[in-house]
């Protein structure tokens, strides 16, 4: 019934073994269209499960406008809006083309993407580069500043990092960076400063060896030094590459993807392959910059919940004392409680990423959809909070829960697929 496995538990074990044996390397930074063939037309990738233009949040629509301008498909925002409204541009979820994207997740052909290779599975995953904070495309801004920065990414940052990685030769071992950074207080969603620092430390010697113009070298290094969250996108591509290898085992109830498009939250489980199980997204709760409040918060967006799927992010709250207070106004005890709660829905600890503040227990490993339904404990996701109007940008940060209904639908479909229960008849 479960392929070569005798039980669901055995299948789940095989999936998580693949997660543990993952060997992620950051090997290159390339134009998205060179690795994602679908991007060679008027196509945009977006975060989350499939979505139509009219259901997108305002920030995601703003991101689409920005990408349309960046690609030169339209000469101004009005024109871009018209094209998008008229359906002239096709949308594909990042997840369908081996990619992940933060917040809106809008990715177009000429944007550079990180290439993370999982040498255990031989597959690759892609993610755009982190733009820093303030007016940025992922939060729906499409001003000149945003478009210019994307141009600099395309012309300078991407090529420079690519050259540096070629000098390095066999790629940067991301597992090593994650293992180090988790002991330095990162959980790889809300806090990536240690990972970003390690990346800077690793990459700078190679950047200096490239033939890139000195001014550009200086700008690139400065940008990396200023961008605390740069490593987030590396962690996302890494999580995606590893979870994609693991989900080649198409049995069992381990969650292999979680993502949101501002309209719906979607999950996949191993036993149901590519199928999405969706439910309306929640809106993150957290702390806000002055002048902003909960009412202005945009519903949950982004593929970044792939980090939680992988067992870090909110699942590893205890690793990052510096951001635990987003859980509420609580301290370490709340963080321990959160991570302990998350272990109630996970199968094991990941021995690769030992967390000192958790008595050196490894990060969470393998969210079991059955356990989520059984206990009613929804995975917690650490997240930035976007303003619900495009272009305002980030207005706070906090946490959000993956809706229980996704997990209920997933195990329901799996039980039906296995012939263990009759499909529910809707009245």
């Amino acid at each position, binding site marked *: 019934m479960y392929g070569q496995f005798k*039980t669901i538990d055995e299948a789940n074990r095989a999936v998580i073994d693949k997660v543990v044996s993952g060997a992620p390397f950051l090997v290159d930074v390339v134009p998205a269209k060179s690795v994602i063939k679908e991007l060679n037309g008027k196509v945009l990738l977006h975060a989350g499960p499939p979505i139509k233009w009219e259901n997108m949040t305002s920030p995601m629509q703003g991101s689409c406008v920005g990408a349309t301008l960046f690609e030169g498909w339209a000469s101004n925002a009005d024109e871009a809006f018209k094209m998008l409204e008229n359906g002239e541009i096709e949308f594909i979820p990042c997840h369908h083309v081996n990619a992940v994207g933060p917040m809106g997740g809008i990715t177009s052909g000429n944007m550079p993407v990180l290439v993370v290779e999982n040498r255990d599975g031989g597959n690759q995953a892609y993610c755009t580069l982190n733009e820093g904070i303030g007016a940025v495309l992922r939060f729906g801004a499409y001003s000149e500043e945003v478009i210019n920065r994307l141009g600099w990414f395309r012309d300078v940052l991407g090529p420079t990092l690519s050259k540096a990685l070629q000098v390095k030769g066999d790629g940067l071992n991301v597992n090593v960076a994650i293992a180090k950074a988790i002991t330095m207080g990162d959980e790889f969603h809300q806090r990536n400063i240690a990972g970003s620092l390690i990346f800077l430390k690793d990459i700078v010697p190679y950047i200096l060896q490239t033939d890139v113009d000195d001014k550009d070298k200086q700008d690139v290094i400065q940008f990396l030094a200023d961008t605390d969250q740069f490593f987030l996108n590396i962690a996302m591509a890494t999580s995606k590459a590893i979870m994609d290898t693991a989900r080649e085992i198409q049995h069992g109830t381990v969650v292999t993807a979680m993502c949101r498009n501002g309209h719906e939250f979607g999950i996949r489980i191993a036993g149901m392959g590519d199928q999405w199980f969706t439910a309306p997204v929640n809106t993150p709760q957290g702390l806000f*910059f002055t002048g902003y409040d909960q009412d202005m918060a945009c519903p949950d967006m982004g593929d970044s919940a792939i980090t939680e799927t992988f067992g870090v992010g909110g699942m590893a709250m205890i690793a990052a004392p510096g951001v635990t207070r987003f859980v509420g106004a*609580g*301290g370490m005890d709340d963080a321990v*409680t959160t991570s302990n709660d998350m272990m109630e829905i996970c199968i094991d600890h990941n021995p690769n990423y030992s967390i000192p503040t958790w008595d050196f227990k490894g990060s969470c490993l393998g969210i079991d959809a059955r356990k989520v*339904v*059984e206990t009613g404990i929804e995975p917690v996701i650490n997240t930035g909070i976007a303003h619900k109007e495009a272009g305002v940008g980030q207005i706070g940060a906090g946490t959000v829960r993956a809706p229980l209904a996704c997990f209920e639908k997933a195990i*329901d479909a799996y039980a039906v697929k*296995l012939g263990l229960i009759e499909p529910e008849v809707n009245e």
Partner: protein
Amino acid sequence: MLYTIVKQNSYQDSVNLMLLTNKISTMEGINKVQIMMGTPANKDILKAADLYTEELEGAASNDMCIVVDTDSDEKIQEVLEEVDNYLSNQAISGSKETFETVRSWDKATTALPDANLAIISTPGQYAAEEAEKAIDRDMHVLIFSDNVSIEDERRIKEKAHEKGLLVMGPDCGTAVVSGVPLAFANVMKTGKIGVIGASGTGIQEVTTEIDRLGAGVSHAIGTGGRDLNDKIGAITMLDGIKALAQHSQTEVITLISKPPAKEVRDEVVNLLQSLSKPVVAIFLGEEPHNHEGNVYYANTLEETAAIAVDLVKGNTIKPNYNTLQGEVPAVELKPEQKTIKGLYSGGTLGYEAATLISRGINYDNTGEHEEGYLLNANGFEVIDLGDDIYTQGKPHPMIDPETRVQYFQKAAQDESTAIILFDVVLGYGSHEDMAGALIPGIEKIQKEAQANGKNIYFLATVCGTDQDPQGIDEQKAKLEKAGVILRDSNNQAVLTALAMLDIQIEEVQKEVVAAKETATAEITVSEAIEKLLTEKPSVVNVGLKKFTEAITANGGRVVQYDWRPVAGGNPRMRKILSVLR
């Protein structure tokens, strides 16, 4: 207007500063405030919030920038003090708990691998299922929950018995195992008297009385009220008696029960007669006239404790322990004041009062009662305020004084009422100061009665020990100060109340007669039960968190299982989870 303070080289994490901003913004006279490090990106945020000032121009990334919009410049000093105060006191104080909290059985057993007892206090409909999960994990079970069907009770008890495990309950309100009080239980001296009972407050009254008389209790096992029903056949009672019989530190066994079905009673008594240890038994409501062989029969809970204590001390057993002690308070009553109103929080204490008063007034109280009444005859009333009909949507009267005070008033309005009789039950789980909570109501009634030129007497017994969290001496002192007449046991309280109305009960003198010959039974006790009676239990507490307190305070180990219904109680999901194993 906007005020800007730049604290140079004063780095703080952005989360801290957001929390600090939230705090300052609640201060009076502050229109708006933002505290951020002076990074370029943050300056943009300040601009967007219309909080940008020229002073910020020179601020660097490591400078803390405080921008305050206020109408009064006097506020600035206050804000700065608050900021410094906050930054120097960032440690978050949380109360440290000495036990782990989990949300599933798997995690519970990981957290406490040698757990051997589960306390189940989930809603009744789920209790049987959770009890079975505990039994599957080789744990004894105390089911505090009620509303478990008798079929479920039988199935669980048979399954446990097969595995050599003990099921206390359902509806087991109290137990003490190896000195660890479980659920609603008193703290008492450890000693040589083993108690087993089908009644919660019956056990509490007997064990606290044993403690007061200077002896101690080895274990107090609750069986649940229906264990001696013929559908259950005393499965727990029989296993429990055997366990106490084999437990070397237990020298005397004490049994408390309502009268069981005939066949069940015979089986239990046969077992008792076959033991080498002396036994004291009370079948509440019966009026025994003899002791039989090894088995001493008591008429009251007080007598039960007294016989047990004399047995353990090696004293000769007296023919009767029910004599009224202490002086009968002089009373001044109006001619119409002739009745007692018993308003009890402990069901068995109320039952005992009803039995004794019926005897006193020569009333046959064996028939059916109106709902909630234990006795209702000629103006004499005894009510169990812990009965389901009084606790619908309200806390139990051991926890909440409200219902009782209400019934005190109702009783006082009845012209025939001379005495209001009640109990105060102490111990873990009960109200932290029930005496203090009842006194205002009592004083009000007394005042009103005096204004009407009459007396209403309050007479009570406090069921507890000096080791209980509430402290029996303090509780007594408070009640006495409020004019409540106190007696040490429920029996004495009832006898005193009757005597105040010139009613006496004929005392039964009992002598020992030979029992019919019974072969000494072969007693085998499972290893698991033996362990339960020789070591402090390791407990999984499924449900009510307050039960953990008594366990940790008395040397037991516990893991708290914050129980929720599986899959939120969704039947299809429960089905799916059961097929996806």
